[in-house]
């Protein structure tokens, strides 16, 4: 392995999303690591015969992208959807004192189904679910203030 071949290898790796490559030849071993993104595939033991035109498998990119903020839950590893507040006001779990709660943990909820009321300036607004699923958690206490985009419920679709 001469310096020119190593340079070619480095150039090649820079062009791909390979994180690390190790080549053994004649008892000599070289490992080249990408500085930026410690990535998904480690390719080892490329036979020396292929040095002139090494083959490689491009690493999958999808696994490393962060989940889209809207739909993913902030804490768990499950695929939970967060229902967020579309307005500012006071959050209520029922239509009035003594009235039944709109939903409880464990309930099935459908698209368009009212899940709570948010009151602002004496106007009561029914908030409807935009997703279908099961209520996993209620994140806000009854009669407490909420702001725009504040997480209200966790739903398992």
């Amino acid at each position, binding site marked *: 392995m001469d310096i020119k071949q190593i340079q070619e290898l480095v150039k090649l790796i820079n062009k791909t999303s390979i994180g690390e490559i190790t080549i053994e030849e004649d008892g000599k071993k070289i490992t080249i690591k990408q500085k930026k993104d410690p990535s998904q595939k480690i390719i080892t033991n490329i036979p020396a015969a292929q040095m002139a035109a090494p083959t490689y498998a491009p690493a999958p990119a999808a696994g490393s992208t962060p989940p889209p903020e809207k739909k993913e839950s902030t804490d768990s590893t499950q695929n939970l959807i967060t229902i967020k507040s579309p307005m500012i006001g006071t959050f209520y779990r029922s239509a009035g004192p003594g009235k039944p709660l709109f939903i409880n943990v464990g309930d099935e909820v459908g698209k368009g189904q009212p899940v709570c009321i948010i009151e602002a*300036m004496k106007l009561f607004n029914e908030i409807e679910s935009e997703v279908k699923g099961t209520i996993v958690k209620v994140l806000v206490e009854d009669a407490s203030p909420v702001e725009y985009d504040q997480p209200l419920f966790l739903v398992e679709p």
Partner: protein
Amino acid sequence: MFKKILIANRGEIALRILRTCKEMGIKTVAVYSTADKDSLHVKFADEAVCIGKPASADSYLNMAHIMAAAEITNADAIHPGYGFLAENSKFSKICADHGIKFIGPTPEMINSMGDKITAKKTMIKAGVPVVPGVEGLLESVEHAKRSAKEVGYPVILKATAGGGGKGMRVVWEESEIQKAYETAKAEAGASFKNDGIYMEKFVEEPRHIEIQIAGDQYGNICHLSERDCSIQRRHQKLVEESPSPFMTDDLRKKMGEAAIKAAQAINYESVGTIEFLVDKHRNFYFMEMNTRIQVEHCVTEEVINYDLIKEQIKIAMGERIVGKAYFPQMHAIECRINAEDPYNDFRPSPGKITVLHQPGGHGVRIDSHVYAGYVIPPYYDSMIGKLISIAQSREEAINTMSRALSEYVIEGIKTTIPFHQQLMKNEDFKSGNFTTKFLESFRMQ
């Protein structure tokens, strides 16, 4: 005494208001769009409420969202800052209807100065000099020709419904008037849906000199002298200073009295600014009144040692104005630092500030909400800070400003710091020899 003030604004002015509230022992509520959640004033406020998506219409201009935030936090007053809802009479009224004190004027005061033709009529009645012109809208080319003869060329045609240069035409002689009238009308119609045009004498090479005033709830008005804001680019102020290099004691006395008369004519409450055009003979003419705190209020604060935001809050709490006139004791210059590239036609340059080092030392004030690591959102105006120098003379204030600008390091975005550095070395600027036309012929080196 207010217990809690909601700051219905963002950026540097929100921080400015927050600082005075803290000093007065008043709790603060910051409201912010999702784009501003890392904003400095949000971090410093006692409480913060997210009020909507980044677009101003969904957040800072959304009266319902702001009122809802005031309700859930039990704020007893709202400070609107400048821009956004600061001069929105509807918002002033909504606050009053909900028992929340709007820290600013009443809806009637805002409306009386909001419409330019009404404002002018009010000023004429009050004996405040206005730009000579013809009353009412122009009805035809013939009417325009007769009016121009009466006023005397050069004249300017202006749109009644808006500004920013739209629907404006300067006419130097009669042969040009027909074309000017027709194109101004068409442009006004397209820009404001109202093609009403009126005519004024064109004040040649004017200086823009404004007088700061304050009025309480009992009819007392005082003035705090002038600021010279002639350094403007496309009608946007870039540099302001006090005292004006063009001012004389006599002119200041006359303009101060005129400004007080103007404010008294509408029984004005809160702080405000009367803007005048001053021609080369030192004749001054009322241009408009800003019924809010202004960006450049800091300049007056430094030369008169006065906290204008504190004064605004005190007036809103029912305290009385003390004194009639305040005069500059020092010289101060303010440079607006914008996230714009002065080498590329001042193109906006939003993005992340990677390195920030702000100047300091004697005679330097910085009002800025940015910090290293802060990402400037692309949704709002590009001002990232105000750099103010204070000294005993104008020459020293310029030297201090030059020195401070040379220490100011902002990396990651482009800023107008190089523009201000070159301006401070410009001979005409240094000699005080400039009008509102100055920047038209200024070129970056």
